[in-house]
């Protein structure tokens, strides 16, 4: 398709769901009520680690309005999590403060809450493990005595050994002219979706489950819930997952969560619809946050600046149970192995159980943590080698055609343009040469999967398209819209191919019983996979339409096309004799002898590879790159950091919708700035101490950050009309860019996030002491 011919793609088309949302008509899980619905509430543990001796629910059961009280003792055991290490309701031990020990269903939320207070749990407190460096020791007390299969465990280290070796790091060390070694720490941050978590579960008379949900992974959730039904003795029964409008995702809904299973158990017990809706406090303490990690990194280079090796050893605080987030070290490998050209790589990571809140993935899936270490270290090494940090990055920049040490095949790569355009925006050379006091510039780049990611056995996306008698097109898709705009770009792409307008497209979604399978909205993949599917299926539809039109006009269908809802002859576009409105042709096709309905389907699975046993393989069929550059001013009296300039350049392949794309960049940049400067879930002996927005500080409109997005279009061969993923990338490089700029401004390097004023003042004091 020629650039100049694009009618819908590349335009700032408003989000298709925006009108529903600005009028308050969109139905979130919070807004949904079903007849006879009960309200579920959960009783959490009083200790971070304790043996449960007894649970007495008798008083709660007698409270008027209570319909069910469940515990691990009166329900079948359902085990969940990536390693199936978590029973939904705990009965032997609790391993974290948020452990669910009982739940109530009642006719209103207040009664349910009151009933929780009447449940008496006797505990025998056990010593807790809150420091991953203690938990990893051989003689540490055990958090899990047995694995999911009942095999005794010897230590707290997860049996997920991450180890990537490429080249010869030891030899490379000998050949390096400069080597730096540092340790970085990143802590818990949480998604803070504005809509809290919730669901409604109900059973039909045949014991099939329907669950109204906000999941990002409806089809994997169906699989999980069917396994739960089996554990409940309902073998062969099915789950229908129906999504409501979702109040934010950011990776918080990539797992099925304990509360959902509790709603299922309560609904089965009461035979009524049961709704569980988190309070904001629960959202903070009972919703798994991003993984903390201690990251040791060493890198070397030659005198000319060429990187020689990168060695990373990481210890992750997994918390008490595993989620899919336990696999984030696999995505951490992406920047560690493949950001800049590094021939020799050694990466090892261990994840360890503690009595802290268990963690899950969050926007970037480990990439922000790893990139903070890699890109901070890049600046430290550049300084050691006496090379300007931007120049240093350009010396080692990734280029098209490269195969990285992890066997990623780099196809399109606009990293060089990203670095250069950010440098230009910041007046980098001038800012470095004529350095102003307390002002500094810093940059960081990123690589992320940009063409799906085969973390599951299928990375596929199913789509059905059907055309009605009025020329309107229904697109039935497994894609989950979490605010990012996948439905809008699907409409644009389908309209483009079919020669109609985006408003002619209706998206039917969010129901596992209607929509074809999709692995989920994760890995920044949704626009990539669903728009690729839309192109294929729209072309099938178009071919059918033009074949019919060809017969009607008695011309070669190859010589026909559709534009502005009208079928026309390509040779004679002005010939009105050989034109027909699309809807008219469709009716003719439908209401004739041997009439036909036009519909088509496809299942698009991108050509990417699962990592092999050495963790190598072409994980994504294209990669997204970008560079963030900032100028900061640091107040050395207060430690306050002000961001004066912020440039975010991204190789997006093609901007399918620049307005939505910029929205992703703005939002991610601000979220990344929070990660860098203000956000931190504070845990004391495993307890979340700041479960509210006053004490957990996400940025507000008062925090003025002058973000300038720069879109670098590389038109990727495999991307839909050339596009790559953008959902996660823009939050990845923010923290190291800011840390590097702070160092440039005041000469201190903060190696643990967030970079609070206290840490800056302390570092300045230490620097002063050293003289």
């Amino acid at each position: 398709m020629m650039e100049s011919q694009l009618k819908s793609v590349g335009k700032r088309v408003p989000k298709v769901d925006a009108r529903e949302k600005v009028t308050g008509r969109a139905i979130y899980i919070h807004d949904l009520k079903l007849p006879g619905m009960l309200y579920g509430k959960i009783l959490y543990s009083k200790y971070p680690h304790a043996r449960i001796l007894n649970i007495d629910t008798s008083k709660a059961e007698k409270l008027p309005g209570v319909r069910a009280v469940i515990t691990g003792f009166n329900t079948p055991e359902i085990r969940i999590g990536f390693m199936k290490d978590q029973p939904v309701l705990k009965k032997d031990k609790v391993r974290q403060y948020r452990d669910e020990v009982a739940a109530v269903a009642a006719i209103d939320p207040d009664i349910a809450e009151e009933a929780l207070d009447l449940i008496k749990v006797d505990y025998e407190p056990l010593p807790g493990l809150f420091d991953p460096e203690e938990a990893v020791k051989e003689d540490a007390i055990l958090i899990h005595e047995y694995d999911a299969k009942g095999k005794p465990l010897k230590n707290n280290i997860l049996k997920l050994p991450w180890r990537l070796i490429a080249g010869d790091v030891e030899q490379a060390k000998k050949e390096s002219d400069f080597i730096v070694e540092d340790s970085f720490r990143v802590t818990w941050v949480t998604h803070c979706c504005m809509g809290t978590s919730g669901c409604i579960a109900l059973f039909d008379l045949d014991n099939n489950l329907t669950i109204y949900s906000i999941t990002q992974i409806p089809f994997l959730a169906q699989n999980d819930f069917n396994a739960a039904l089996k554990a409940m003795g309902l073998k062969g029964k099915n789950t229908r997952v129906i999504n409501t409008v979702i109040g934010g995702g950011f990776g918080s809904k990539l797992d099925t969560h304990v509360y959902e299973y509790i709603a299922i158990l309560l609904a089965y017990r009461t035979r009524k619809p049961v709704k569980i809706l988190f309070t904001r406090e629960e959202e903070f303490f009972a919703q798994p946050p991003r993984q903390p990690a201690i990251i040791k990194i060493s890198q070397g280079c030659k005198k000319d600046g060429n990187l020689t090796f990168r060695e990373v050893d990481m210890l992750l605080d997994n918390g008490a149970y595993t989620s899919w987030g336990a696999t984030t070290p696999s995505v951490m490998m992406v920047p560690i192995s493949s950001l800049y050209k590094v021939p020799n790589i050694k990466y090892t990571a261990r994840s360890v159980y503690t009595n802290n809140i268990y963690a899950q993935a969050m926007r970037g899936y480990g990439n922000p943590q790893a990139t903070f270490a890699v890109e901070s270290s890049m600046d430290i090494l550049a300084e050691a080698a006496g090379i300007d940090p931007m120049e240093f990055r350009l010396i080692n920049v990734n280029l098209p055609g490269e195969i990285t040490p992890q066997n990623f095949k780099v196809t399109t790569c606009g990293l060089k343009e990203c670095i250069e355009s950010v440098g230009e925006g910041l007046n980098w050379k001038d800012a470095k040469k004529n350095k102003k006091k307390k002002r500094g510039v810093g940059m960081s780049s990123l690589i992320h999967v940009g063409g799906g990611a085969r973390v599951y056995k299928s990375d596929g996306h199913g789509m059905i398209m059907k055309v009605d008698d009025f020329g309107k097109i229904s697109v039935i898709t497994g894609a989950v819209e979490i605010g990012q705009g996948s439905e809008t770009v699907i409409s644009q792409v389908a309209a483009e191919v079919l020669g109609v307008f985006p408003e002619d497209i209706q998206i039917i979604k969010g129901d596992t019983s209607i929509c074809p399978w999709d692995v989920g909205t994760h890995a920044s993949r949704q626009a990539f996979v669903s728009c690729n599917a839309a192109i294929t299926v729209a072309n099938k539809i178009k071919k059918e339409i033009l074949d019919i039109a060809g017969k009607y006009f008695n011309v070669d269908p190859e010589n026909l096309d559709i534009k502005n809802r009208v079928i026309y002859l390509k040779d004679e576009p002005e010939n009105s004799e050989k034109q027909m409105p699309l809807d008219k042709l469709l009716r003719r096709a439908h209401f004739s002898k041997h009439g036909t309905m036009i519909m088509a389907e496809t299942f698009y699975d991108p050509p990417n590879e699962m990592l092999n046993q050495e963790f190598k393989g072409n994980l994504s069929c294209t990669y997204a790159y970008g560079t963030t550059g900032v100028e900061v001013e640091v107040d050395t009296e207060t430690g306050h950091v002000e961001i004066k300039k912020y440039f975010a350049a991204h190789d997006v392949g093609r901007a399918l919708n620049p307005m939505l794309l910029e929205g992703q960049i703005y939002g991610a940049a601000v979220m990344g700035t929070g990660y860098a400067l203000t956000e931190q879930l504070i845990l004391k002996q495993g307890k979340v101490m700041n479960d509210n927005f006053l004490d957990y500080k996400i940025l507000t409109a008062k925090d003025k950050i002058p973000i300038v997005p720069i879109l670098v279009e590389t038109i990727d061969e495999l991307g839909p009309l050339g596009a790559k993923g953008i959902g996660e990338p823009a939050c990845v490089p923010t923290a190291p860019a800011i840390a590097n700029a702070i160092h440039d401004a005041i000469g201190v390097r903060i190696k643990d996030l967030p970079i609070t004023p206290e840490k800056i003042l302390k570092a300045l004091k230490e620097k002063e002491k050293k003289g």
Partner: protein
Amino acid sequence: MKKVISFKLNGEDVEAEVEPHWSLLHLLRETFELTGAKEGCGKGECGACTVIVDGKAINSCLFPVMEVEGCEVTTIEGLATLNGNLHPIQESFVANGAVQCGFCTPGMIMSAKALLDENKNPSEDDIRTAIAGNLCRCTGYVQIIEAIKKASERREP
């Protein structure tokens, strides 16, 4: 003990039987089934429940229901006409990409409306201050601020 209160809701005189401990948000969502105002925290920290009472944007989750007596309350449902004509601020939010997940959107728009009703030509700082109590996790606020600015320009005579 239930009490009866009467007030004006989206231009209409209404009466409701309430429990005195309810919040205005509870009344709107449960009694009137106006679910546009959202409960994001229930503590006045996030602004998702913002509605306008007598010209002022307030957190309805904290607003005691008994104080609504005799007031004029406008919610997001009161902005667009029934035939789908959006208010200029709503139009501007749609056109400028100010909506992502949309959970904060109704509250955000009500704060913007209270601002523009009072100040026809707000500066960027005025806008930032007016929505400082409305948290948004998706947009980074940029396109929201732009949308409010453009809506104010459009309303200029």
